[in-house]
């Protein structure tokens, strides 16, 4: 009996110890899994925030890209349309210049152009070239500029004159075409402003 009781006590003790150990490890496991859960919750949240932030960044980038390109495309189309209209205005202006009457006013203009050319070249010993339409006007204006002669070679232009020194080393282009060319950037701006640009 004594032996049995001692055995029972021992078994009881072992069972109690084992139970305690199991409970303690269960508690520990619970604690550790709770802490792991809490930790992973934080890192999960961080990961989630990171993904959201990256997604937001990507979306902003795409928005910027799409809006930027669309703005640029529409601006470029506007530019082409304005340019087309400017060209039309120029065409009409050139046509008008071609058809200008070679009257007294025009004769004064030729004289001014001749004086300008002589001043630029620095000599009145010059040869003048012009188109067929202006030939007579230029010829009559030359009487005021001794040393200047009219060349028999005709040039293609809207009007005005081309001048060169007698030795041929200096030339001065004072045709309406050349003047128009030089002023084109300023005229373009004026025309564009009429279109509200």
């Amino acid at each position, binding site marked *: 009996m004594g032996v049995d009781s001692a055995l029972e006590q021992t078994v009881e003790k072992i069972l109690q110890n084992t139970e305690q150990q199991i409970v303690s490890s269960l508690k520990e496991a619970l604690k550790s899994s709770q802490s792991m859960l809490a930790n992973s919750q934080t890192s999960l949240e961080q990961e989630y925030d990171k993904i959201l932030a990256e997604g937001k960044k990507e979306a902003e980038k795409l928005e910027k890209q799409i809006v930027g390109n669309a703005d640029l495309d529409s601006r470029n189309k506007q530019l082409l349309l304005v340019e087309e209209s400017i060209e039309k205005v120029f065409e009409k202006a050139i046509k008008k210049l071609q058809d200008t009457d070679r009257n007294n006013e025009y004769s004064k203009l030729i004289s001014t152009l001749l004086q300008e050319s002589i001043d630029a070249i620095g000599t009145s010993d010059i040869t003048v070239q012009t188109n067929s339409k202006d030939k007579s006007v230029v010829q009559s204006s030359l009487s005021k500029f001794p040393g200047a002669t009219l060349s028999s070679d005709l040039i293609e232009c809207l009007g005005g004159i081309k001048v060169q020194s007698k030795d041929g080393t200096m*030339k001065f*282009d004072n045709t309406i075409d050349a003047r128009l060319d030089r*002023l084109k*950037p300023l005229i373009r701006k004026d025309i564009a402003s009429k279109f509200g640009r």
Partner: protein
Amino acid sequence: MSSQGGVQYSKIAEIKGPLVIVDGVESVAFDELVEIQTTDGQRRLGKVLEVGNGKAIVQVFEGTTGLSISGTSAKFAGKVMEMPVSEQVLGRVFDGLGRPIDGLPDPIAEKFIDINGEPMNPEQREYPRDFIQTGVSVIDGMLTLVRGQKLPIFSGSGMSHNILAAQIARQAAVVGTSDEFAVVFAAIGVQFSEAEYFKRSLEESGALKRSVLFLNLADDPAIERIITPRVALTVAEYLAYDLGMHVLVILTDMTNYAEALREISAAREEVPGRKGYPGYLYTDLSTIYERAGRLRDKKGSVTQMPILTMPSDDITHPIPDLTGYITEGQIVLGRDLFRQGVYPPVNILMSLSRIMKDGIGEGRTRADHQEISNQNYDAYSRAQEVRALAGIVGKAGLTGVDLKYLEVGDGFEKEFLTQGVDENRTIEETLGLQWKIVSLLPKNELTKVKDKFIDQYYKEQ
């Protein structure tokens, strides 16, 4: 602009390299624009370099190939070279002389400005301040770019400076203000593929809308390169001082510019200076770099980021050497880092942004910016020393703290320095990374930052 044109002279005395010497000229001015006409009616632009004894030396921008003494004439325009400017230049692509190459018409000009610019009155200059965010951590965090600053990038042949330049052009922005921002990008003597890359990169990111591109290609006449930075800066000055924008000008590659200058100098038979560059290289470079800045009572600013490749990676070469005298610091790209695959391979120990302190801190970036940057400099420099030591005694011979510094060195290069080509980091992210790197060290090693910042940002690892 006048309707009256200039006189055309047909007496060409000599054609020498990129120069044409015209004889019998009168009333011609220094720097005057010249139109050279060839026998087949082709027109090339040039400018007067010297006048005297009835002769004018003309530098032809588009080169003199194919020109002959007989049949060539020079028309003096009676004005200096001007760049037509207006807001319409934004989003446009021009060649090295400022002519559109994007298939669109000439922009309608608001003004015509002399490309040599007006000298800035030193009294009117305002000290550069405020931060420009490039989105590149190493620049924003440790070599901060400040509005109105001139901060060059010293690179070497074949390194990733052009990729970095394009990234900065795409990402750069002024933060915390509604002021408008623009980028003027001048590519000087670059390859066609590089020019395409710059263009595509800006187009695809939508940044072209606020950019102006000037592309001078490697096969364009070298002489054009003299003009490219000047037209780019003229546009930048207009955008900044007339339209009130903050403008970042990226000039790549200034070495090609200096080579072109050397070519002209040789053709003019001038006495060569160091490595054949003209003695006035310093003065000439300063006429470009000094066009950066801010003006009192003007809203905008011009910030410059010239990029130059150092021949044989030699930082004592005349181009980086003289550039360094004029600019306010430098960002040096390191060959070793580049070989390790680090992008951007910025060697911070050789780099410096001299006026960074005026663009950062509370109200601009963050209060701890300067201190955390100093701490990173300190830690990385120590890491380099420890690396050298480990090379001799081996890792086993290092102390625990030394090993921590090794970790810091690696972390700095892999996490902070290394960045994706499309990765645009905010200044908060950059500063966060800097704290992450130094947090690898024990707290008592952080001697450059105040305790209050350590308490706030240090993350024990």
